[in-house]
């Protein structure tokens, strides 16, 4: 049995195409990433970038949702949630950073090209960028963060990083020291949730990476996610056409985030599955307490291994529960509804917190081997912690939960 199948997930709800895609991705990432990384480590040019290209362009993750007549695969019903989960789990197992980047791309596609809310005009405008086979679309988001200026316009207390004003049929964007969610150094398309001058409703505006007036700072160092070479940005009088504004409402914004959180949850489960495989090999072979005592047979370490497996199992089930909610809007409501959005936010935080604990414990069980880069475990520990930081403060997310469950209004 494929060892990943030890962890239950609702296989019965996945289509054959999903299972086939997962199986072929499992082979591909094993060959192209896992087998090569001892030598190539986390090298961006040598390992990560070529595989990002492969996954998005050759495998075609960046074409998944777009209509067929625009070059996409039109796999754009809500059931695509299962496809996203199955695919990103496999990618995340090989490299969490690559899956995290793909989660951005897929969330944007879902926001624009879902069958139920398909924005034909926007699709016609943006699908070619994703479908013409020219190269990978590295999508990054610019979301509100803690600000430095108390008067800056805010969304749920956090400061918008970009201010937009409409001018002669388009938008002009301004922002300094912007911290995107990924790939500031490489992104080809930014999606920014912007404050709009003189208006209440924010706007989600797409900014091409090569837009005049957009400048990128140097890549900065961070804990993990080598595939996301991040850098701060400045937008100075950046002009984009009116159609680049994809939506103005909270509903659509939350829809984008719900799909984004699904992608991140699946990415995280992938990292957990990788940690499982590394620990399994260790537990089968390591001897402790003198001779003849196999690691996994020791009551204390064996119990901890069991607990880690429990954490992984529960996380996988939660990821597919979220996929199930997104896949069935008639039962659960729109992906942007309060209930689905809140659930997505709870699940992504729950799974990331569980992953943090499980990775800590896996590191502990492998002791110095866990800490040495050579064993390839510590990168998942760093990567997933970085993802958790980028998803945002759990403390503040809890306020969203309270809004939904207790009707809190001023948090």
């Amino acid at each position, binding site marked *: 049995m494929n060892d990943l199948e030890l962890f239950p997930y609702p296989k019965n709800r996945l289509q054959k195409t999903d299972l086939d895609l997962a199986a072929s991705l499992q082979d591909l990432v094993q060959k192209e990433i896992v087998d090569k990384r001892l030598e190539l480590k986390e090298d961006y040019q040598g390992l990560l970038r070529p595989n990002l290209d492969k996954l998005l362009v050759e495998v075609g993750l960046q074409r998944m949702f777009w209509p067929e007549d625009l070059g996409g695969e039109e796999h754009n019903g809500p059931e695509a949630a299962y496809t996203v989960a199955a695919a990103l789990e496999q990618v995340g197992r090989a490299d969490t950073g690559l899956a995290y980047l793909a989660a951005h791309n897929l969330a944007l596609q879902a926001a624009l090209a879902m069958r139920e809310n398909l924005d034909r005009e926007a699709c016609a405008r943006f699908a070619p960028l994703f479908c013409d086979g020219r190269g990978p679309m590295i999508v990054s988001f610019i979301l509100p963060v803690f600000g430095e200026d*108390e008067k800056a316009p805010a969304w749920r207390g956090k400061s918008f990083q970009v201010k937009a004003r409409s001018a002669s049929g388009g938008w002009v964007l301004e922002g300094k020291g912007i911290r995107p969610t990924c790939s500031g150094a490489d992104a080809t398309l930014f999606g920014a949730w912007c404050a709009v001058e003189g208006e209440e409703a924010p706007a989600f505006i797409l900014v091409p990476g090569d837009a005049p007036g957009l400048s990128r700072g140097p890549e900065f160092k*961070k804990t993990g996610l080598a595939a996301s070479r991040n850098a701060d940005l400045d937008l100075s009088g950046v002009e984009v056409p009116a159609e680049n504004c994809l939506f103005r409402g909270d509903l659509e914004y939350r829809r984008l985030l719900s799909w984004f959180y699904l992608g991140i949850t699946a990415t995280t489960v992938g990292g957990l599955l990788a940690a499982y495989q590394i620990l399994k090999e260790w537990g089968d072979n390591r001897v*402790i307490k003198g001779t003849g005592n196999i690691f996994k047979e020791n009551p204390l370490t064996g119990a901890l291994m069991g607990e880690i497996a429990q954490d992984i199992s529960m996380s996988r089930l939660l990821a597919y529960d979220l996929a199930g909610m997104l896949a069935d809007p008639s039962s659960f409501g729109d992906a942007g509804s309060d209930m689905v959005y809140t659930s997505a936010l709870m699940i992504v935080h729950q799974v990331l917190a569980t992953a943090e604990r499980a990775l*800590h414990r896996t590191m*502990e069980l492998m002791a110095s081997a866990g800490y*040495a880069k050579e064993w390839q475990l510590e990168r998942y520990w760093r990567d997933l*912690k970085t993802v958790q930081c*980028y998803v945002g403060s*759990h403390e503040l997310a809890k306020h969203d939960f309270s809004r939904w469950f207790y009707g809190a209004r001023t948090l």
Partner: protein
Amino acid sequence: MRTIDDFTRPLEYVSPMDGLLGSIFRDWVEREVMPYRRRFDEDYRDHRLIHPPFKKLLGEYGLQRMIFPEDLGGWGMGRSNYMCTAAFRMFEEIARADTGMALAFGALFWPFLFIALEPHENRRLLEEFAPMFCETTEAVFAALCMTEPQGGSDIENIEIVKGSTIRTTAVLDGDEWVINGHKLWPSNTGGLAKLMAVVCTTNPGSDDPRDIAVIYVTSDTPGVTQGPPYEKAGMAADMNSDVWFENVRVPSWYRACGPGDDAKYFGEIMSTGNMGIIAWISGAMMNIYERLTEFVNRKKFRGLPLKENDAVAGVLADFAAHIEAIRIVGYQCARMCDRHDLYGPLWDPGLVAKTRAQRYLAMDRFIEVTGRVMNLMECFGADRDWDVEKHWRDLKILQLVEGSKQLCQIETARWFYECTTL
């Protein structure tokens, strides 16, 4: 404005030198380490940036002489009943900037515990090695080589495993020991160590503690090879590598304490190591507090400094509460290590178990609460420029080294509940 010095330090028993030591180390850290530490990760192989501050601290200020007796050019710390309390302060101050440096600094003294502490001072060996450390202004490093490829915990688990898994052999040939074996991970290796204390067996497979031998080897002895430094998740300032011993010959009197005593005094490594780990945690937490304070004052949420949000304040309070508790436990641990008249000898299994308990509790708490702080800082929590992630990465290893988490639990249970088979 509140500072790190407003956290409680148990004034009734800090060492008389505490203030002076504190200011010397604080000043050194600010001038020699803080400006460079964000680039240390990439310097793991060469120590181009890491070495100069060490040269100043160890060689020029002379801290590497600390443990040697005064008449041999040292400072006599080995005979002081403030050794651990003073070390706690030094460790804290270094770890505030860089835990890897603090670990490398602490590990430098490990090999000498066997020979520099009363009642088992080994005068002849002290005389032999003191000049290497006391008559130079260069930084000189020493290493304690315990861990082997088949496992580190088992070697430290002397009470139960009794040295039976040690594969590095020492065979007496006339008036020389001949050492063969392969060690992993000693701090200050990768070419740095000039002197090593090597944990060997004189009778492979034996579970008689008298067969555990701690033998000194200078690294220029033929047959000693230090491999290249490992690449790790953090702790770049602590260099670790493989070390091979191939028919290495040293005089027979290079054995630390002798049959039975080498194993017995191994406990001293454990209790002082546990104390050191709490100090490093405490020091790192001081710096996280500083950086976090800056963050929550500067960053705005709902038009106010972030710290003014009640939910955020809950996390901030938890962090401060942990510093208070961990630091007090740490100083108490140091005092227990110093006052043998009150708490028993440093190698006593009870003391080892208690310090293990204190240390693993502190470490678990650090990991949990610092993880929350990073998450609170959102994308900046993972940002090298905010330093918190560095401490989080660096300190993780303190849960794994020198008696990993589970060994700490086992030894704690073994002592407090008198388990006999664990």
